[in-house]
């Protein structure tokens, strides 16, 4: 591992200023992804700016009835928060479905959003990978592709985003607050992560040195009726093959509003807008869910090993919607 300097930032401004002192500096959250990547040789920072102890570890009520989640809030604390469990269960469920108890105690909200793909070629510095080394080629397109994308991929990269939490946040229309050398800005969670296109080396739209300070949840009353369903190779402690987060507003026996987000299938958490449109103002029923899921997957393309994900996601979407509408429909 390359030697590096370590600094604990006292406040947001200091963190951004420290980051500006070196082009290869990295922010350090819980370290559960970055330390691994430094050990594997994927990341070679000369400076770590520790932001895990910044005063960003609170979950605050917003005046509009929403919640502000500080970037340094640990995944375990966020999942256990009473307000989140009651008002945004999809988020609690997504977090609890990820990693393990002892990792969730370390992992932070900011770090979770910016964790990088688990594509095995990305993690192996001896193989070509456009995300790690632009222009070197993609080993997955004709290689082992069981865990790779079925939607939104490009000829340059077919990796998927691994975060469960981000999928939950996408179904809840979260907004990410970012501070950088140029000031503060907000980015919707849907805009934060990118599709790979020609530039798979860029996971997100963040500019160098930008720090995530918080994630805001809007007050969506019907998010109380939301959940997260994850399908994986074993019952616990494994990344998603596919996952679905959904929130449904039922009114007089019809779907007044709905949000659906999918994980494990694309370079970014995938918002199923086409399916959502087909469901709004309809009476919930399984055949309808099936049609909506099929429509969303219309443009899905399988690689050599991941064709199973297309029916698996369809079934998972139908089952999630059924779970949310069953008792009252």
């Amino acid at each position, binding site marked *: *591992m390359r*030697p*590096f*300097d*370590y600094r604990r930032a006292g406040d947001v401004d200091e963190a951004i200023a420290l980051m500006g002192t070196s082009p290869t500096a990295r922010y*350090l959250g*819980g*370290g*559960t992804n970055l*330390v*691994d990547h*430094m*050990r594997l040789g994927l990341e070679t920072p000369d400076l*770590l700016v*520790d932001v*895990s102890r910044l005063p960003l570890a609170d979950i605050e009520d917003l005046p509009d009835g929403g919640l502000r989640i500080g970037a340094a809030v640990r995944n*375990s604390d966020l*999942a*256990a928060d009473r307000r989140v*469990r*009651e008002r945004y*269960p999809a988020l*609690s*469920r997504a977090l*609890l*479905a990820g*990693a*393990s*108890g*002892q*990792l969730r*105690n*370390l992992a932070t909200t900011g770090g979770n959003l910016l964790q990088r793909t688990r594509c095995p070629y990305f993690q192996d510095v001896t193989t070509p990978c456009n995300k790690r080394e632009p222009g070197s080629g993609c080993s997955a397109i004709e290689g082992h592709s069981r865990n790779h994308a079925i939607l939104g991929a490009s000829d340059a990269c077919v990796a998927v985003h691994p975060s469960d939490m981000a999928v939950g946040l996408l179904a809840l229309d979260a907004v990410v607050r970012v501070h950088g050398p140029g000031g503060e800005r907000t980015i919707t969670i849907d805009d934060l992560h990118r599709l790979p296109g020609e530039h798979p080396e860029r996971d997100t739209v963040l500019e160098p040195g930008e720090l995530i300070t918080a994630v805001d949840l809007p007050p969506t009353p019907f998010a109380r009726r939301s959940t997260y369903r994850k399908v994986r190779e074993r*019952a*616990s*402690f494994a990344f998603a093959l596919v996952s679905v987060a959904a929130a449904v507003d039922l009114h007089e026996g019809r779907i007044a509003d709905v949000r659906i987000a999918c994980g494990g299938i694309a370079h970014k958490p995938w918002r199923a807008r086409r399916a959502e449109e087909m469901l709004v103002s309809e009476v919930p029923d399984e055949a309808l869910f099936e049609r909506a899921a099929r429509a969303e997957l219309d443009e899905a393309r399988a690689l050599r090993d991941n064709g199973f994900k297309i029916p698996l996601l369809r079934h998972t979407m139908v089952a999630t919607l059924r779970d949310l509408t069953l008792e009252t429909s």
Partner: protein
Amino acid sequence: MEADITLVVDGERRSLTVDTRTSLLDALRDHLGVTSPKKGCDHGQCGACTVLLDGRRATTCLTFAVAQDGAEVITAVGLVTDGELHPVQEAFCENDAFQCGFCTPGQVCSVVGMLDELRAGHPSHVTADLTAEIGTDPAIEDDEIRERMSGNLCRCGAYGNILAAVRQVTSS
């Protein structure tokens, strides 16, 4: 680059100089000779390196020692008070909850941290009702124990007896 840090390990204040690249696990084992946390994978995947870090269970292989300057670490050895085993350790012995023992210190610390999480009312992935009060029911279901302990692997497959040990602690 080197850094001077202080850790309180199993109740004892220890000052040391570490290369910033040293993980907390390596600092404990190689610098301080505290070998109860084990290095199974060094990638967060096995839980053998689990300790109680500032009171909460955490893996020590994916955090740098320098980032934990000032922290309190309790390892499985530190759970013994005045020669008395901790009730979780007692239950592991009585239930034969290990074979080779390599994963055991991490398992024991993880159980202690997990029980604190239960007492604090934290739900898990298999909790059916997220809004229900949690932690007051002593007869925690087996699937809850399995889920909450899934971050600790055991290559000897002593899971059945680990489950029995945890059940003994939660029902007493």
